[in-house]
């Protein structure tokens, strides 16, 4: 696989992951992630492994009526992909109650699965507009 092909493959898996959020499909989302996935909502503690990350992803999706992550920029280099996004959330069926500007950095492993996911955003904006917990209690 050329470097270009690898980056294209990595970008495709990240786009697939983002589409799964739009479909509110936890299985489709988790299928994009490696067994040893490390998920960090900066500056919170990392959540590691399929089991624990699924709990968080599922918890957020359960509370979501509609999700649309507008992808403003998406490109890769080596095994890293950046997504600059506006994450639109409808938590109560009354429209986009939260539009969260966000950057997500993704590490993709040799098998083409996402093994690192680091989101950067303003936590207060998330929590004050209906965003549910982002750590396991």
């Amino acid at each position, binding site marked *: 696989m050329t470097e270009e092909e690898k980056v294209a493959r990595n970008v495709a898996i990240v786009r697939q992951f983002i589409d799964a959020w739009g479909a509110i499909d936890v299985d489709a989302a988790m299928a994009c992630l490696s067994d040893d996935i490390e998920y960090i909502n*900066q500056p919170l503690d990392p959540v590691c492994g399929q089991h624990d990350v699924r709990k968080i992803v599922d918890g957020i999706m359960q509370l979501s009526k509609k999700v649309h992550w507008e992808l403003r920029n998406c*490109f890769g280099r080596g095994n*890293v992909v950046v997504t600059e996004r506006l994450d639109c959330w409808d938590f109560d069926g009354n429209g986009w109650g939260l539009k969260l500007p966000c*950057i997500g950095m993704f590490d993709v492993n040799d098998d083409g699965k996402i093994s690192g996911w680091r989101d*950067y955003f*303003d936590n*207060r904006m998330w929590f004050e507009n209906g965003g549910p917990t982002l750590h396991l209690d």
Partner: protein
Amino acid sequence: MTSQADKIARNEATVRAFLKGWDDLDVEACMAQVTEDMCYLNQPLEAIRGKENVRKMIASIFAPAKRCKFELKNVFGHENKVITERVDRWDWTGSGTWELELKVCGMFELTENGRIIEWREYYDNEDWTRKGGPSLVL
């Protein structure tokens, strides 16, 4: 004619020079890399527009800082964009320790001639203010 790869390398070098200006607390070194109509956006705050306003903002961040060091975790460009994933470390009081270690991503947009025209920072604003970061509003 500059090739696309050359242009991306040049853009990355511009962004690295801009961030080096922060390490040196050197406002003019930073400003040498930006356009007159530059826009600086700290999500989720108000955008700061124009070189003079951005200069004021950066100078007022540098004013209370004793030392600063930006660790670059990832820097790479695509078309006219450059992404930086960083840990920005600040010593505000001269304690010799890093009192603030801010995890942050900055997305830069550059002009055809390789100057920074837009800079969008994504981070947790409370993490910044709680650990000594000064106001980011003019």
